[in-house]
C-alpha cells in the first residue's frame, strides 16, 4: 500500500516535471497543449475506473456479495473524480485553442452525459442505502459504460471540434516520442494513484460495514 503510494507520487513528480519543463512546446497550440499531460491520463484512468465499476457491478448482481458492491462504489467515486478532471482540463485547454470553454460538440456532450450517469450512481447510493440501492446502482454501473464507445466513436463518425484520437488509433500514436514518454509516465502515475485510492476506499468501506454490523447487533 505504502509502496504503491510512493510509486505513484514518484511517477507524478517525474511526469509533472517532464510535462512542464522538458517536453517540447507544440508548434501550433503553444503552451496550452501541455494540458494534454493531465487531460489524457485523466480520461484513461476514468475509463479504467469505469471498467472496474462495470465488472464489480456485474459480479455483485450475479453473486450478491457485498464485497463487489463496495469495490464498485469506491471505483465509481474515483470515476467521477477523474471524469470531472477530464471535463475541467478540457475546458481549460479549449479556451485558448478553440476560443471557447465549452461547446455542445458530440465528444464533449457524451462525456458530460457520462459524468451525469456516474453522479447519478452516487446519488442513488446516497438516497437509497442498503441492498435495494446497491442493486439499482449496480444496474447504472453496468449500463453507464455503454456511453464510453459512444464517446470514442463520436469524433470518428461525427464532425466535431474535438480532435480525433492521437494516441489510441489502429495505425499507432500520432505523437512524437518526446511527447509520448511524459504522457505515458503521467498515465502510469494516475493509474497507480487510482489503485492506491481504490484500495484505501475499499478498506474504509469494509471497516465501516463491520462497525455498523457490530453496532446494529449490539443495539
Amino acid at each position: 500500500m505504502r509502496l504503491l503510494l510512493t510509486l505513484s507520487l514518484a511517477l507524478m513528480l517525474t511526469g509533472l516535471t517532464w510535462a512542464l519543463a522538458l517536453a517540447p512546446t507544440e508548434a501550433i497550440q503553444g503552451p496550452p497543449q501541455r494540458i494534454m499531460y493531465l487531460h489524457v491520463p485523466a480520461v484513461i484512468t476514468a475509463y479504467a475506473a469505469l471498467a472496474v465499476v462495470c465488472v464489480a457491478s456485474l459480479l455483485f448482481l450475479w453473486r450478491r456479495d457485498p464485497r463487489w458492491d463496495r469495490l464498485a462504489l469506491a471505483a465509481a467515486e474515483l470515476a467521477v473524480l477523474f471524469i470531472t478532471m477530464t471535463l475541467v482540463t478540457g475546458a481549460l485547454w479549449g479556451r485558448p485553442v478553440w476560443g471557447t470553454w465549452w461547446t455542445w460538440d458530440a465528444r464533449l456532450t457524451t462525456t458530460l452525459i457520462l459524468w451525469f450517469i456516474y453522479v447519478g450512481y452516487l446519488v442513488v447510493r446516497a438516497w437509497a442505502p442498503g441492498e435495494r440501492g446497491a442493486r439499482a446502482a449496480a444496474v447504472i454501473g453496468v449500463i453507464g459504460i455503454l456511453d464510453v464507445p459512444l464517446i470514442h466513436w463520436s469524433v470518428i463518425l461525427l464532425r466535431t471540434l474535438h480532435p480525433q484520437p492521437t494516441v489510441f488509433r489502429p495505425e499507432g500514436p500520432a505523437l512524437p516520442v518526446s511527447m509520448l514518454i511524459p504522457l505515458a509516465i503521467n498515465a502510469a502515475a494516475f493509474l497507480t494513484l487510482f489503485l492506491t485510492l481504490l484500495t484505501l476506499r475499499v478498506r474504509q468501506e469494509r471497516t465501516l460495514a463491520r462497525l455498523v454490523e457490530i453496532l446494529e447487533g449490539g443495539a
Partner: protein
Amino acid sequence: MAFVISAYLIAIVLFGGYALTLAARRRLIAELSDAARPSPDP
C-alpha cells in the same frame, strides 16, 4: 501558461478534496470504533 497552471492547480484541488473525504471517513470510523468498543465492567 496561465491555463496550464490553472489546470494543474485544479487537479491538485480535486485530489485534495478527495483526500479530505477520505480523512473525514477515517474520523467517522474512529468514532464508530469507540462506540463499538464494549464498556468496561463497573
